[in-house]
């Protein structure tokens, strides 16, 4: 069963560490580590910040997820993958989508940022918190923070497009090693 709901009980903000111990809940988090982002298969949904909470009810588990971008087409795949992992564990579950608090790239764990880099995607370099109006002003001055190349580490890189193969990524090119690469944008 998949339920769409925009309002939820208070969900955590920030990165979520993998719970340890042998409680049912910790065991479930560990089991769900195998469910990865369909576009970035090196990150689990927890590491990406999409899986926010697991709660148990009298009828089974509730998995609370939050979308990254509003139109991200991977969301339905994520729901299906979570349900299929729960099914193979023999646990009845429903997946609930919550919009608030809004997902932020700040919720990607540090380990996950390192995995992204190794995978060839430059992780978001800065906090996503910023003032919209000043962004417009900055656009005029073409001021952009430098994004280090995930291949050679050089900061001598340039943006080729603000939008890339998926909504969450921009396209960059390294001027030192000449490799093109994806940059996971702050959101």
């Amino acid at each position, binding site marked *: 069963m998949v339920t769409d709901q*925009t309002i939820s009980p208070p969900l955590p903000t920030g990165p979520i560490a993998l719970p340890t111990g042998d409680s049912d809940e910790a065991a479930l988090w560990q089991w769900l580590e195998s469910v990865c982002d369909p576009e970035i298969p090196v990150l689990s949904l927890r590491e990406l910040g999409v899986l926010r909470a697991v709660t148990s009810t009298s009828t089974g588990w509730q998995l609370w997820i939050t979308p990254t971008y*509003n139109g991200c087409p991977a969301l339905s795949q994520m729901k299906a993958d979570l349900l299929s992992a729960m099914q193979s564990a023999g646990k009845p579950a429903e997946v609930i989508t919550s*919009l608030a608090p809004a997902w932020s790239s700040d919720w990607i764990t540090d380990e996950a940022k390192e995995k992204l880099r190794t995978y060839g995607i430059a992780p978001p370099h800065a906090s996503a918190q910023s003032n919209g*109006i000043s962004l*417009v*002003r900055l656009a005029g001055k073409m001021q952009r923070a430098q994004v280090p190349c995930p291949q050679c580490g050089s900061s001598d890189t340039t943006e080729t497009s603000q*939008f890339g193969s998926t909504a969450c990524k921009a396209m960059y090119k390294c001027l030192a090693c000449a490799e093109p690469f994806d940059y996971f944008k702050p959101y």
Partner: protein
Amino acid sequence: MTTLADYALHLADNALILGQRNAEWCGHGPVLEEDLALANHSLDLIGQARLLYQWVAQLRGDGSTEDTLAYFRDPEAFFNFTLLELPHCTALAPSARAERDYAVTIVRNFFFSSYMLLVWGVLQSHAQPQLSAIAAKSIKEVRYHCQHAADWLIRFGDGTAESHDRAQAAVDFLMPYTQEFWSEWPAAKEVLPDTAHLKNQWFDMVIDVIKEAGLQLPEASGYVTQGVLGIHTEHMSYLLAEMQSLARQHPGAQW
């Protein structure tokens, strides 16, 4: 229907109609990167529209769904700004099928995304939790749209003589349509009471980028369009026909 549902429908229609219009560039972008950028914009906008339509359907409670709202309404039942339904060409183009002008696309995206930056900014602290949740997510996306459009507008204005002239022509053509942003129709008056303040903020943002681009911002004057009241241009029917024909010819089609 409640005022809030009316306003949410207007926001959803804005997002869907511009999303559909910009998607026309898919496979036809001036360069590959811009093709991808505009498809990404549309994905964001249609994602926002879906959330809003789902919520409107819930508020109405009359059996509407996101699909009936998007595919089974006629032009007069849409309440988007007229600006967003216009084809990608200026007034002197001979027909809506004339060659698309990327300057029109960029100027429209710039005017609208800078406006939505302010609107989502107000709505993200709205007392209705669903509206504030949608606003808090959408503002993150519209920042990228606005930055993209501002960058290109500066590049066009500050580029060659032709890119400058085409950018100026697009600004001159589209500016009068922005008057509709500030029109006082019932739902907007209630949800966004202080349009005078928004208007000042919007002008400050826009003029900064226009100056940086070396362009002139004309006075917004003349006929005030009324898309928010369901009164549209001829272009709206063609846009909807393309978007809705499959769903109407094959009701319930799935793929």
